[in-house]
């Protein structure tokens, strides 16, 4: 069955340079730097990446960072809490617009 997302395509990510090498090289170099140990640990960065993967709902990123967090020593509880952080922000982003709705309702109501 043909689908838009093929798990095997994740392995080909590095090949995006075939069409535009210079920008791909810059991106991957930047990407590598971002995930190096810095003020945040590699483990913390991996958990952030896992949460963001869920917020942006990228299947490739979810596959990649589910394994990466395990390989950084995270456990399932920590990983699911990270997903809840993403869910809370996404949910909150919808709900905070409720204030706008309330403002408008009050504006047009007697």
């Amino acid at each position: 069955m043909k689908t838009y997302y093929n798990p095997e395509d994740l392995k080909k990510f590095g090949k995006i340079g075939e069409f535009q090498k210079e920008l791909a090289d810059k991106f991957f170099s930047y990407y590598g730097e971002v995930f190096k140990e810095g003020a945040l640990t590699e483990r913390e960065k991996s958990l952030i990446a896992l949460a963001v993967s869920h917020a942006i709902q990228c299947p490739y990123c979810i596959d990649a960072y589910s394994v990466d967090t395990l390989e950084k020593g995270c456990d399932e509880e920590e990983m699911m809490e990270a997903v809840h952080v993403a869910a809370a922000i996404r949910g909150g982003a919808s709900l905070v617009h409720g204030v706008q709705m309330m403002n408008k309702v009050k504006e047009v109501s007697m």
Partner: protein
Amino acid sequence: MSTATKSLKKQNHVFSDIDHQLKVLHHGIKDQNLDSFSSKLSETNLFPLIPTNLDIFQINMGKMCNQVCSHCHVDAGPDRKEIMSKETLQLCLDAIAKSEIKTVDLTGGAPEMNPHFRWFVEEAYKLDCKVIVRCNLTIIVANKKYFDLPEFYKENEVEIVSSLPHYSSKKTDSQRGDGVFDRSIRALKMLNEVGYGMEGTGLTLNLVYNPSGAFLPPSQAGLEKQFKRKLKKDFDVEFNSLFAITNIPISRYLDYLVASENFEGYMEKLVNAYNPVAAEGVMCRNTISVGWDGYLYDCDFNQMLELKVAVSDKKRQHVKDFDSQTLMDRKIIVNEHCFGCTAGSGSSCGGEIT
């Protein structure tokens, strides 16, 4: 991972057949057009792999174990009856005495289940050797005849290396069997009580982490901090160092990888993570491994694949004709499972290599 109660051998499982294991490993590399281990070594000027020293004498005292762990490369368990005899153990002592070896590393199965275990430890200690015992922890609380093992270890200044794949019971039990975590914590407390893992005692208790699934281990230093914090906070347990070990794709772990359809991905991951610095320091370069029947191997993994040391004089393959120089002159046998020791920071019985 899920735990079985019988060894692959007892089940007549297809993965108890060594030729089948080697065939699967070969196809895992060839069918994905990955580089073979020997070609990776060649690319990095390490082929043929040769010994650097002969420092560690690792003895597999038998395949009998009180546990049936789902990743076990030995396929050990209560139904395995292969046990090293006292005669063979004496040959090991003779070999150690006539060599420069100062470290004796005892593994199994559960080495403590060998009826000559205590005698052997005392004799090795008399030879002025540092004795390491790879203790699965639960053996200490398995039966009252083992309850005094912590005291025995202490008297003989044994270094303890014990598997504890995780500080959570769920993860540990999924790999090592139901209830193993709780029993391991009880045993760790008994070891702590006699001074093991406690500052200033000189009694070393190291733990071993290995992944509970088809992924590579995290960095050892970071994980050690986590383990120390969690075990102290939740159980008041202390230890010295944590060794992070990669699972080697043979025997039960290979069966798990194939059954869970993770085999190809895992092999690709290992090959892509090949680290020449780790390859340079692999443990087979300074260790010799002795099987329960006295035959010699480059490592415990080659032992389980029945790949005996490649020495020209076949009789030198047995401990009764042990000769250090012959072994130093050998070429180490490599195969695709060796990628497990060279991935990332590398892996050995002492944890990371680099």
